[in-house]
């Protein structure tokens, strides 16, 4: 048998093949098919063209109304309605609408809908997030989603991989976000094109599940097919806690081939910000001058989880948002919202002068709830800073961790947390 990477092993198992190699085209069974309020309507149109009308498994499809929900306009409402009616007629069990929904990639792990060893395809590019749990998960298009819903199958080109061996422990104010921005800065937005990014090493034990979800989430920003973390005790404890199915652990073979191997000492990473208009424009504070800002967004599938809100609140507690800086905090799911309320975090944000929103993708994709005007700048904990991503084509998005975003909201310019925290 050929030596395989983690990803290749999961693919081989689901394709019922003894082994696979990079470049091979395979048909594999999938464990979960995901769509949202933007991509599902296109998939539903395509699904209607498929002979034999049922879905392959009512439990293995998730539809999450998160992008333009609560519906921002009539067209968005029509799209959600289309999804709602389809989900109802097909008996899809994991349909999440306003009131239950959260940003999809925060919601699925929290609901225990993904476990280690699964294959997940989602009509959303950040489906790669679940690699944090040791699953093979990747973004696909709406036609893939339609065919996946009908057949439970998807075609894949088996990827080669880049290995990231993590060592050491992160310093204060450094999180998974800084690590992944650093990595994307290092390898570029097409640095892992068509490939897997596999994370391993003794440094893993110093990364929480929230750190890992954030890092796997941004694998696509390096062009990767998927990002995947080796399963350890932390993963298993999380999966047990959320009531996920029994995990299946795939470890890379010792002699598996990697295109490149990088060793990254987590202790060497400092707070990092990606400048417009590509996530690869990563800068550390020695390179960041005075950049005044108009808006701060803390939320999204990258950094809208509880740990993110706790860290942001630590910075903002007892302080006031700088005048002229609209600060928007968006807990990624209802559960996170509730936990943040119980922990008193929402009070801290509101007292500081921030707006706290119900879960939604909202401003992350320039949808609603915080659109930028011409020439405006935002620091955001989201994952993309492309032209026009948060509004006007001449607006700018700077990507950062929750602590940098929170510190920036207080000073009105891109700031290191140390600037507002006396240590």
């Amino acid at each position: 048998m050929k030596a395989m990477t983690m990803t290749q092993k999961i693919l081989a198992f689901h394709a019922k093949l003894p082994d696979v190699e990079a470049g091979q085209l395979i048909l594999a069974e999938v464990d979960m098919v995901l769509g949202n309020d933007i991509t599902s309507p296109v998939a539903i149109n395509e699904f209607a063209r498929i002979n034999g009308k049922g879905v392959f498994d009512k439990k293995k499809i998730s539809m999450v109304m998160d992008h333009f929900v609560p519906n921002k306009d009539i067209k968005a409402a029509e799209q959600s309605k289309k999804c709602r009616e389809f989900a109802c007629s097909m008996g899809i069990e994991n349909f999440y609408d306003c009131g239950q929904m959260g940003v999809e990639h925060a919601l699925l792990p929290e609901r225990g809908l993904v476990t280690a060893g699964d294959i997940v395809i989602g009509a959303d590019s950040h489906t790669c997030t679940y690699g944090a749990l040791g699953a093979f998960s990747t973004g696909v298009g709406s036609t893939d989603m339609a065919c996946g819903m009908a057949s439970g199958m998807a075609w894949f080109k088996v990827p080669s991989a880049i290995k990231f061996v993590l060592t050491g422990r992160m310093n204060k104010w450094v999180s998974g976000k800084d690590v992944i921005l650093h990595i994307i800065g290092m390898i570029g937005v097409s640095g892992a094109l068509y490939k897997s990014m596999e994370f391993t090493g003794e440094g893993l034990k110093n990364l929480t599940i929230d750190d890992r979800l954030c890092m796997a989430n941004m694998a696509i920003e390096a062009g990767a097919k998927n990002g995947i973390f080796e399963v350890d005790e932390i993963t298993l404890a999380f999966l047990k806690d959320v009531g996920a199915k029994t995990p299946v652990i795939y470890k890379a073979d010792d002699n598996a081939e990697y295109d490149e191997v990088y060793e990254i000492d987590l202790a060497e990473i400092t707070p990092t910000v990606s400048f417009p208009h590509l996530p690869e424009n990563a800068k550390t504070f020695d390179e960041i001058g005075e950049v005044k800002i108009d808006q701060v967004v803390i939320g999204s599938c990258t950094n809208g989880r509880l740990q993110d809100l706790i860290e942001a609140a630590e910075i903002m507690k007892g302080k006031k948002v700088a005048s002229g800086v609209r600060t928007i905090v968006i807990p990624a799911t209802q559960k996170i919202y509730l936990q943040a309320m119980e922990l008193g975090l929402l009070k801290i944000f509101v007292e500081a002068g921030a707006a706290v929103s119900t879960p939604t993708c909202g401003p992350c994709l320039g949808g609603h709830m915080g659109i930028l005007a011409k020439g405006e700048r935002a620091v955001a904990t989201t994952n993309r800073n492309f032209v026009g991503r948060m509004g006007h084509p001449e607006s700018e998005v700077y990507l950062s961790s929750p602590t940098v975003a929170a510190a920036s909201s207080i000073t009105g310019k891109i700031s290191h947390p140390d600037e507002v925290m006396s240590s």
Partner: protein
Amino acid sequence: MNVKGSVLKYGDNVDTDVIIPARYLNTTDKKELASHCMEDIDESFVTRVKTGDIMVAGNNFGCGSSREHAPIAIKESGISLVIAKNFARIFYRNAVNIGLPIIECEQAAEEINEGDTVRVNFETGIIRNITTMKEYKTLPFPPFIQQIIQAGGLVEAVNSGLISKK
């Protein structure tokens, strides 16, 4: 199958947010999507593009979101083929799945200029720049992908039994 058309040229990392901005994703209407195609990097695209035109671009074309609206908007605007140095992977599979022809060719993508007339034969994989009289050879699609394209797209491949549960 042959296509022949004049070229509209773009650079590296043309992302799905500029191909079709998210503010227009509240529709699945193909014509409406096409009417906003490329508008954040090239407002004149929709008025200049003619049926059969060929889009040429650099590295990592179609990076960003998984929105199938991007290849749909390009196809519906009349573009017959996209040639790039390489494509972002979700865009690549979406294009195959909806039947928008795409070709990876580093040299052609580098040398073909805006306004050139180009002819491409998909069977032979030969790209001919009629304006400069230069020829480029590309690799044909792998057989599995060719089967999907020949079936007419992924839905047709499922309907014809090419993709079904083992």
